[in-house]
């Protein structure tokens, strides 16, 4: 009987023991959820259709697209001036401005000027604080 509970772990394969165990538990829990919530899962298409229908697609996907472009451009731009953080600084200004304009409801001259002013002032201050004062690495 005691043999059933005895375990020998080979050091060379010890990195797989816990992931396999957790994977098995996850599979069991996933199966239990599938069985219990099968109706909800089968009709989840409706839920996603509802999400798609009710979401503000311009702001959601616009924010995502701007963020992806921001991440993609920071390093190549920064490579022109290595170890200066200019990539972060140069890309953050249009990112903050465009995201602010995207999120804005009433694009009155006053609101637009406020967002543009923030976009022009905040990134340089943040860049100066982290790059020049705290000496942190920025793209």
């Amino acid at each position: 009987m005691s043999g059933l509970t005895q375990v020998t772990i080979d050091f060379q394969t010890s990195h797989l023991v816990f992931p396999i165990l957790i994977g098995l538990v996850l599979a069991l829990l996933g199966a239990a959820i599938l069985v219990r919530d099968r109706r909800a899962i089968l009709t989840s298409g409706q839920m996603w259709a509802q999400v798609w229908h009710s979401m503000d697609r311009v702001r959601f996907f616009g924010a995502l697209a701007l963020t992806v472009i921001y991440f993609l451009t920071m390093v190549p731009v920064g490579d022109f001036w290595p170890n200066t953080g200019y990539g972060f600084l140069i890309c953050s200004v249009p990112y903050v401005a465009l995201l602010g304009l995207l999120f804005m409801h009433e694009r009155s001259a006053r609101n637009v000027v406020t967002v543009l002013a923030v976009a022009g002032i905040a990134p340089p201050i943040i860049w100066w604080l982290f790059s020049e004062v705290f000496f942190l690495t920025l793209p």
Partner: protein
Amino acid sequence: MDILNLVMDPLFLGLILGGTMMGIIFGAIPGMTATMAVAVCLPLTYSLGLVNGLALLLSLYVGGITGGLVPAILLGIPGTPSSITTTFDGFPMAQRGEGEKALKIGIVSSVVGGLLSLVALYFFAPLLAKFAIQFSYVEKFLIILFALTVMAALSKDMLLGIFSGFLGIFISLIGTYDVTDGGNGHTRLIPPGTGYWLDGGFALLPVLIGIFGLSVILEEAEKGMPRGQSLKDIEVGPHSRFSFSVFRGQIVNLVRSSGIGTFIGILPGVGGSAASILSYTAAKTTSKHPERFGKGEPAGVIASEAGNNGLTGGALVPLLSLGIPGDSTTALLIGAFALQGVQVGPLFISQNPETWNAMIIAMIFANIVMFITMYFAIRWFAMVIAVPKQILFPFILMMCVIGSYTINYGIIFDVWTLLIFGLFGWFACKVGIEIAPFIIGFILGPSAEIYFVKSLESFGDLTIFFTKSWIAVILWVLILASVAASVMIARRAKASADQTS
């Protein structure tokens, strides 16, 4: 640095003042939380050192939890999830012109709850840590298992809660089984073609910042960035002046609610909303006038705010004595410790007495600063609600990028991790994956692996998890009790739902 030098240090005091005020602002803006404030400000701690960095983060925590009462009372919208019950009586009070009175009741209750929880932290955490020093790998593994079951048991859905915790553990195992932790240095769970980036797994801070920063902004964007309030909507109300006499007969309520909040904080991953709901329920059921609750009863505001601020000290108890975060915000503090190369656990307090004292002092000062600034400048803080999100959110995203990029001294994959987990956080909310157990699982996963594998390597028998010591037996009893309690709660909730339908 001794205590006198610390309290005379202008940087230390300035960080507490700034952190508390910034935390209040984050808490006061609906949709932004104390957790987000800590996530956004984490990169600032790189250069501040551990003591000053913690002073900033703990002040943000105290301010953020308290700031949620401002919109809860003035608008009926909880600024943070933990101030949900403050809306029940605070908002009706504001509607009848007693906004300022309700706010000041909430502020006084918050500072009492915060300070009482610090007393519990100061005396209880070292005791628990001394006890936990005796723990072997077996008990340490069981403590983590207990933390996960408690969290899962108190989730909205126990099965999904457990699944979320294990999913967090699974994702934390991606990468190398670290030699420095006693592993064999081999990699696992890395999808083909991603070995270059995922060799070390996902870094903790970008994951946390993505889930608590970016995903919140994505949710707001999905909802079309709901319009904030205009200044004219915010009426503090001059009709009824605040007097401390309102607390006459409420001392028991105040102390009980602070105690409940502290206790809930000690339970891993449960969170402030449970603390305030339980405190509010206890106040209502023991009140001579339960019918007044929900209609503008000051006792309701007292219970809710003392309860959620009681959480602040309580949540630090398991973090500093066992290395297990008490809630999402203290999970982020683990990141701050990791940045400074300090490991939290049973040895932390005895090996870092200066840091421990500094944390207590920082939290006392943060509570005092919170009280003074909010009590005397509440009308100014009320205006924060009207700050437009189109200005705040891009700025926050920029800070999220800095936090993620600088964690490993400039690795762009960490920025992509931020995006991946920001999207994951948004998706998780849609499909019911519980974020708190997921995060705690992610944080504790690597430790759980080491403790589990080393236990088996040492003893070679699965029964060791049950027979190692009387502590192991007690932990199993607690694990089973938490699961049983959860099943009972779920059955009662189902029965009452069936009755109402």
